């Protein structure tokens, strides 16, 4: 194991010029430390980044809220900027892990770790978040929705890292919001099903619907087919059998030690129904 603590961004980039698929960035450590202890990560190059100020903090930049990748969940929960602009996002994060882990776990880490159960991702997906991905020579901005490529895999090269998460300042404006994280207890739990939703209604028709789920696929994702089906329909025009059929196409829940696929699927159906009815 090799441990590096760069002094600044320049030092960071110097250390990541070469591609190295055993490179890990350490910030809060709530996932990586466990993987090191379990021997899942070994003989790796660990670069510590939590102290780098360019990666920290919450700012308003024009029409966006920009959250540094290593900003921890407590900082987001306590942020005035988030409270004023993205109150639904802030409120929903209260169910993230536990108060203790919130002080350590970072928003960028939760995304980059790529768990199908990542708590922040369904929320960020319905808020149309983008990621600022940087390397020594390049900065690119991509939609979070295009970030994941499979179970714990993403489009980043090993000489890149997430610098910030960009959320449109008005992402929640005018929407009815919905968030439900379902697990085996109220705190410190890994979700069995997560649903985040935004909707607005005009003349009793859904003009916009945004839905994202976690723990039901290899990575959290938007339910575009259902969104499309629901748009411009009123509640009575919706055929819920059709919604269930589309959901079946969009999710691939599994049975494991924690839960059963039938349960996960039906809970998701129920949550969508409640989201639309409320």
């Amino acid at each position, binding site marked *: 194991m090799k441990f590096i603590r760069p002094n600044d961004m320049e030092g960071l980039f110097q250390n990541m010029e070469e591609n190295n698929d055993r490179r890990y960035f350490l910030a809060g450590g709530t996932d990586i430390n466990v993987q090191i202890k379990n021997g899942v990560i070994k003989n790796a190059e660990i670069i510590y980044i939590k102290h780098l100020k360019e990666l920290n903090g919450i700012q308003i930049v024009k029409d966006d809220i920009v959250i540094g990748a290593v900003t921890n969940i407590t900082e987001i929960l306590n942020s005035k900027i988030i409270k004023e602009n993205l109150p639904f996002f802030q409120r929903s994060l209260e169910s993230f892990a536990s108060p203790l882990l919130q002080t350590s776990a970072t928003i960028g880490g939760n995304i980059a770790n790529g768990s199908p159960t990542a708590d922040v991702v369904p929320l960020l997906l319905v808020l149309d978040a983008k990621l600022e991905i940087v390397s020594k020579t390049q900065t690119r901005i991509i939609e979070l929705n295009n970030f994941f490529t499979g179970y714990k895999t993403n489009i980043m090269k090993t000489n890149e890292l997430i610098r910030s998460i960009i959320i449109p300042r008005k992402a929640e404006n005018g929407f009815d919001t919905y968030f439900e994280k379902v697990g085996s*207890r*109220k*705190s*410190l739990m890994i979700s069995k099903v997560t649903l985040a939703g935004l909707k607005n209604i005009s003349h009793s028709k859904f003009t916009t619907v945004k839905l994202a789920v976690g723990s039901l696929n290899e990575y959290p994702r938007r339910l575009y087919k259902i969104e499309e089906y629901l748009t411009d329909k009123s509640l009575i025009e919706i055929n819920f059998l059709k919604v269930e059929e589309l959901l079946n196409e969009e999710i691939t829940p599994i049975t494991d030690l924690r*839960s*059963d696929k039938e*349960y996960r699927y039906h809970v998701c159906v*129920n949550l969508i*129904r409640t989201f639309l009815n409320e």
Partner: protein
Amino acid sequence: MKSIRKIDAIPKLNGSWKFLDDYSYEEMIHGQLLYSTCHHGTIKKIHFPDGYNLSEFTVVSAANIPGENIVPEPVCDQPYMADKEVFHFGQVIMGIAHPNRKLLREFIRKIKIEYEELPAIIDIKECLENEDNVFGKELIIDHRTGRKPDPNWIHHHKIYYTPHQEQAYLEPQGMIAVWQPKEKIMFVRATCQCPFFVKEGVETIMGSAIKEAVIETSEGIGGAFGGKEDFPSLLAGITSLLSYKSGKPVKIVLEREDDIQITTKRHPARIEIETWTDPETRKIMKIYIDYRLDAGAYQTLSPVVLARGVLHAISGYSIPDAYIRGRLFRSNTPSNGAFRGFGAPQAFAAMEAHVESIAADMNINPYKFRRKNIFRIGNEFPTTQPILENNLSDCLERVIEKSNYLQKLEEFKEWNKTHKDKKGIGISIGYHGGGYTGNGEKVLNSEVKVVIEKDATVKIYVANTDMGQGAHTTLAQMFFEAIDHPREKCLVQLPNTSKTPNSGPTVASRTIYIIGNLLRRFALKIKDELGFENLDDYVSSNQNEFPREFRMKFVQDPSVVFDEENYVGVAYKDYSWAACVTEIYFHADTYQIELTKSWNVIDIGKVVNQKIAVGQAEGGILQGLAYGLCEFFYKAGYGRMHGFSDYALPTTMDLPEIDVEFIHTDSPIAKGLGEIPMDFPAPSVRNAFHNATGIFIDEYPLVPERIFKSLTADERR
């Protein structure tokens, strides 16, 4: 009733209280256990990894044991370490030690063992449904009258299942052994409930290689709940052997994952009940109970759990005609062992569900049906032990009254008519016999010792450990309150088998009930013998008499006579009683039960320390509710859990409002408190769920996946 502060409260807050892993000895090395990952098989070869200097490691196996390779238990059938054949996953094969803890862990992880696999039973139902898997002695309580059921009596026949439960003590199992070759003494520092069990465990494995084992507990014992009753004997044996072979102090602290996977759990149970109820009198007239436990690969202490299980199987109901059989079933899983409640929670799970079903079928209010059948003076247990008090009934009446049960039944019924989500309210009752079963306390022959120093400090020597439950505070309190001595001059000493007489293990709700009451009588006896009014004054005017040692033995009440062959007689002299009403909120979207309020009325007789007693009750009640609600350890097809991210221990966020009231506190006797809070609450969750939805679930826990299955099965019907 004085709520004096626990002696360990401040040192635990400031971190100065020492737990096992806080101790260190010069030249100490670290040990770990190498255990089987095969459920049943013969060991063909063990491959140590390359790249390590094997001479740095100390390795012990069955072949190195100078004494006997059988852990002393009620049934001696479990080896410390497997010889050629392993009978379950998690069976210890070797103890290995090295100066570097991290390197040791890495080394052990890389060891490969080749097995020739043999047939294994790992599924709980596969184990409990097949009567070919029975082992050990069948227990029978036969209280049949020979009367045939009347044709109009209503027959109910159901099978109930309960799962494993993990003790989840904060501090994992740990042990330090320090071999002293000159004196031939094996000194062991233990986090355990029963120092004298550990002593026997070390002396058995070491045989004549040592003169004596001396066990002293760590200052702090970070929880146990039964989990540190018998496993420490095995662990201490292997740690001692490593110290003996290496000549160095050896410390083993189990990794949490290993602790969860290989140590004892609560026994899963299958309990089949048949009853015949008279529709006229609404009384249960006849019962048959088949009580089965999955013991794991060895019997160890399971027969004692089985005994308590059958003795509590009928719950608190007077049934004239009863036949109860109890049997242990073998599986290829680690031996199940002691856990707060010790067979009783399984018993109440079944019987408290069963009476609820009968009441529902006969369209009788569950409270009124219970009231009709509950124990009263003049009734008897199936063992013929007479019921001498109406305290169980008093608990039920009080909890019904204070929870406003009858009114809420109506309110919830109305509310549920117009809501997708549902509210429910459920009852359960329970009791726990204090101390060892039957003649056990006579056999234990417990002794306590007190030394009064020249400054009138009283040092109390008992083998009972304080594992966070406050025993050392409360035991001292019982002594100094009896003679009105200042609290700071009365201290329980750290249990050490060379200084402390054997006052028995810290189990079976016996610590305050047997040892505490003994200390209270002891204090009064010393006062009487010396003839003092004030101990301080007496000691200062009779300095030449001190320091002075006093000893006293527990004498069992002569009314306690139990026929262990036929299960007839007085099984426990005193019982603690309890009743519970729990309110739930059922979330229709997610099939989750949320606990909203739990009302509990408990009779433990005299309450020595109100705050400690309430704390014990609240903790046990949450543990009990979670047993019914969310905790499971094994899933068919997916195996056993590895840690707390999957094993759903409730958090404080899941805690409902818990109301605890003690009644009949004017009793002169402080009865057992340790286990009863765990025994009775779980069935109330299930009964409340039935009240909310009309659906019975006959298997714990009521996780949403199980509820979903039973709801959709119901819709299909």
